């Protein structure tokens, strides 16, 4: 690990200002992903701003009947929150499908959104990776790509976003609230937070330097049957090959987002109109333009089958 200086932030605005003022500074909250990457020297911050003491650890009702989830709410606490379990079951399920008990106790809501890909070539510093070292090439294209993206891929990167939580938040139309170094705030639809790789796969979100996520908001509950189905190589403690977050209403309409298939949670609202007709019809629109490799082409039928299983379960 490279040396770094360390400070404990006093307020969200101070943390953002400090991050913007100092060269190569990073926020640290749970640290479960950042420290892993720092040990491998994939992340080399010169300064760490510890935001753990900020008062951003509450889940509160919003004026419009939704929820505001503080950036520092731990994954365990969010999954166990009675309101989330009752009204946003898909979010609780997605959180519980991710990582291990120890990691969920530490990992935060904002950190989960900002975690980096688990592409093995991003982690292997002996191999080229455009995300780790822009311009060096992509080892996954033509390499072992079984776990990689099939949608929104580019010539420079086929990495996936590893979050389960974000997939459920996408299906629930969450918004991400931030504070910028000048003290101004904004609310970003989660659909716009993560970027596709394009030719700059090292830039993963639209957040500006120093911009700090302060909370995630959920709109008022929409009811329905909420399901998160994760398909993976082990029954527990593994990243998704494919996952489906679904909110299905009695009339068969609803929302569906996919994990494990792209550089961001994948949702195509237009395709959801086909939900009452079945998985095959939805998948056609949802996976339009898919560019799988020889090794991950199985994800195309796997998405359809997983969605069919989810819709069958929702029907009861």
């Amino acid at each position, binding site marked *: *690990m*490279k*040396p*770094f*200086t*360390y*400070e*404990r932030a006093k307020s969200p605005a101070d943390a953002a200002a*400090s991050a913007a003022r*100092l*060269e*190569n*500074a990073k926020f*640290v909250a*749970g*640290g*479960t992903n950042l*420290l*892993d990457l720092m*040990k491998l020297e994939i992340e080399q911050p*010169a*300064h*760490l701003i*510890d935001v*753990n003491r900020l008062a951003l650890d509450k889940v509160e009702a919003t004026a419009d009947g939704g929820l505001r989830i503080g950036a520092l709410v731990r994954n*365990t606490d969010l*999954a*166990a929150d*009675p309101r989330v*379990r*009752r009204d946003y*079951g898909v979010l*609780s*399920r997605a959180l*519980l*499908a991710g*990582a*291990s*008990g*120890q*990691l969920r*106790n*530490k990992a935060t809501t904002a950190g989960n959104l900002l975690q980096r890909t688990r592409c093995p070539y991003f982690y292997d510093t002996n191999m080229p990776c455009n995300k780790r070292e822009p311009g060096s090439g992509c080892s996954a294209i033509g390499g072992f790509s079984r776990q990689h993206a099939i949608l929104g891929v580019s010539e420079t990167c086929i990495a996936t976003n590893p979050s389960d939580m974000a997939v459920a938040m996408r299906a629930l139309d969450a918004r991400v609230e931030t504070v910028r170094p000048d003290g101004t705030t904004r609310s970003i639809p989660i659909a716009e937070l993560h970027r596709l790789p394009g030719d700059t796969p090292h830039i993963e979100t639209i957040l500006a330097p120093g911009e700090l996520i302060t909370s995630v908001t959920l709109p008022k509950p929409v009811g329905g049957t909420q399901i998160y189905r994760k398909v993976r190589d082990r*029954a*527990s*403690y593994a990243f998704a090959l494919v996952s489906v977050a679904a909110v299905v209403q009695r009339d068969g309409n609803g929302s569906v987002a996919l994990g494990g298939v792209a550089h961001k949670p994948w949702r195509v609202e237009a395709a959801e109109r086909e939900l009452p007709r079945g998985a095959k019809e939805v998948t056609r629109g949802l996976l339009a333009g898919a560019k799988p490799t020889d090794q991950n082409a199985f994800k195309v039928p796997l998405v359809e089958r997983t969605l069919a299983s989810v819709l069958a379960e929702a029907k009861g």
Partner: protein
Amino acid sequence: MKTPRELEMSRRNLLVGTASSVAIGSVPQAARAQNPVADVPAPTSTVPATAKVSFTVNGVAHELDVDTRTTLLDALREHLHLTGTKKGCDHGQCGACTVIVGGRRINSCLTLAVMHEGDSVTTIEGLGTPEHMHPMQTAFVKHDGYQCGYCTPGQICSAVAVIDEVKAGIPSHVTGDLNAAPQLTNAELRERMSGNICRCGAYSNIAEAITEVAGRPG
């Protein structure tokens, strides 16, 4: 002629002594003088920085002056010489380093010591002693919940916390009804213990040990 046991002891003392002196000797005075908690960072420094941190381990207060890079795991093992907590993968994948902080199990390898100001840490040494073992330790011995024993401190710390998590009503991936109180079935405890890997494969005996302790009243 020394017995193997005496040789082992002196080798360990030598290693501990060497580690301490290196830790003190290698930190330049300039770095020791600066206070990284204050707002005076060096943006592109390649010089190790240190910071002070105070926390309680197994009921004993400690104040440490550590390289900011020191993980909680290394602080416990190398600074406080509590070597019961094990370093396995050092990347949060195996669970051997599991300790309980503020009542919650975490991977001590993926958190910095300086992030634990004011925290209360419990390690395997704090759960029980050879003379007064924690019920979970007794159950692991009784059910032979280990072979080599390297993952055992992490397994036991995790298991103790798992029982508390179920009592607190925290659901898991295999909980059928999210809105009902979870029960510690075999499927539940296996899911909840999935962050603790045992290469010897003592899982069925570990499950039996946890089940026995969980089944006790109170």
